[in-house]
């Protein structure tokens, strides 16, 4: 991909064909051939026991790592052939992790703006965007606070704002509500749904929480590196 060119309009946000991921030279088989697809504008939950490969799959979709074998298309592009994965992540994907990963010596606003740094946006626009997003996640009064001065729920909401600052097409969330109170969790989920409704953002969210899964259009369940119920009209393995 190059420049600010957006993803070609296609039906699928993610298409995984027989994706395998091994660690430690095959000693750990984290994913054993995963096959599924996610439509644009869908909100999909990934569930499964701990250690089943959910995070591994999300990282592969997010181009943070490469599969051992198989084919992964994200927003219409085969990841194996994308030259600038950094730009893909920065411009089109948004990540929310279980931990907030906020940089402690930067204010919430500065943290939210980190994904915009490589984009060279005008300063005023960046500041406006950060303020707007922090407002949207209910942190309008915390813009210039350092993370230590904020509660756990506030930090996670700031991390969500950071994921949204570049208007991602695809939002990838790894147990975003796993370490926050239920009220914050509900709030984050509300935000995801409204983004999906307003902008057609595709959301993939790993969760242990059945309530969260219930709010998604459908769930994919992974057990031991395999998808239990293949969905989305694709052929199973």
């Amino acid at each position, binding site marked *: 991909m190059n420049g600010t060119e957006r993803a070609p309009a296609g039906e699928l946000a993610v298409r995984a064909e027989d994706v395998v991921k091994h660690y430690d030279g095959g000693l750990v088989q984290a994913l054993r051939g995963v096959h599924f697809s996610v439509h644009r504008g869908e909100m999909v939950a990934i569930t499964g026991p701990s250690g089943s490969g959910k995070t591994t799959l999300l990282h592969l979709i997010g181009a943070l790592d490469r599969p051992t074998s198989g084919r992964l298309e994200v927003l219409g592009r085969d990841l194996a052939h994308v030259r600038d994965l950094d730009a893909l992540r920065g411009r089109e994907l948004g*990540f929310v992790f279980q931990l907030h990963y906020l940089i402690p*010596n930067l204010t919430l606003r500065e943290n939210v703006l980190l994904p915009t740094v490589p984009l060279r946006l005008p300063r005023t626009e960046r500041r406006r965007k950060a303020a707007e997003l922090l407002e949207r996640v209910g942190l309008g009064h915390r813009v210039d606070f350092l993370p230590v001065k904020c509660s756990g729920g506030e930090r996670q909401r700031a991390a969500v704002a950071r994921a949204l600052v570049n208007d991602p097409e695809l939002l990838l969330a790894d147990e975003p509500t796993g370490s926050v109170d239920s009220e914050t969790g509900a709030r984050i989920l509300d935000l995801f749904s409204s983004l999906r409704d307003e902008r057609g953002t595709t959301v993939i969210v790993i969760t242990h929480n059945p309530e969260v899964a219930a709010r998604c259009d459908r769930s994919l369940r992974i057990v031991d590196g395999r998808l239990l119920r293949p969905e989305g009209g694709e052929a199973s393995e």
Partner: protein
Amino acid sequence: MLPLKNLLRRKARSLFAVLQIAVAIAAFVSIYGVTQGLRAQFYRIGQVFAYDLIVMRRGAPSPIFSTISPEQLEAVRAVEGVRAASALGIQFLAHPARPQPVGFVALEPGSELMSRYRIVRGRPLSPDDRDAVVVGRLMAEQLGVDLSALAPDGLRGDPPRLELVGWTCRVVGIFESPLEEVPFLSGMGIMPLKTYRETFGRPVNLVAAHLAPGRRALRIADVQEGLRLGRALAPRIDAAVPGLKANTIEDFLDGFKQVAIVDGFALAISLLAALVSVIGVTNTMLMSVFDRTKEIGLLRAVGWSRWRILRVIEAEGAILSLAGGALGIPIGLGLIRASSLVLEGGWLEVRLDLRIYAAAVGVAVFIGLLGSFYPAARAAALQPTEALRYE
């Protein structure tokens, strides 16, 4: 913004890294300040004496023990390539009120060497003078010579008397050091060679054989040319006048060799200091990169390239090194000041031109960039997934 904030996060650690660089820079500045000063002094001596050969008795342990007969002096004058020769004697005389003797050189008025001493007050020595001397500005100050009769354009009335143990003379003129920047050369007096020979019964100690009377080496290339010509002529003098040995100023003054040795030493010490601080910066930055592994993973996840990560870490190194340079240069200057106080004023000339500051800043930046290169490369090479899972 981010690099600076990162450094401020671990203030003590960053400060130690800065101090480490500062020590290396202080060492660099002080060592080079002093050696450049030495070099400059000897280079200037070279400018005055490049076209001269200093002829001494072969095997004489020092100029004072060298004696040259009138026949040998004439023989040196007769060697082809020697355009003029100045005979020189060395005499120390006790002063009734001073613990140290007063140093004189004896020269013939009108000789080439004599002409290099610029008279700034009174008059020069004339061939008729017997009990008359000219003294250097520094010596005049030290002895408290009354300058009232010594006007800038000549004598006004009776020249002041100078009473020494066993000899009383008149000070007819004041001269300036032939090397303005080497003031100790004006800390002596000059007496007529005739007086030296006849009144004191002393022999000529040295002969300066002049290859190009009146010529001054203005550029370093001239100094080198003079030294080369001198080295070619010296063996001919040695052959023509048995018992004498001709030396260029470079061979004559051990200082030239010492400068080379001191230069090498300075380079070695500076390299060592730089190496130690490169290791220190590497250590500091590596710890800081490990501490921030998860943050680096996050930055990669939100679209920062390896290259950008590398630049952030290198920028941190550069900031550390500029701070180290900013601190180290004044420390180095302070060291020089302190050591010149200990070594008592005068001979330790310190040479600090802009080039040394520029070099110091360059060395500091080099230390910072080199020291942070490996940590930056490590940070850039981090796999985003690994970094995010890092415990």
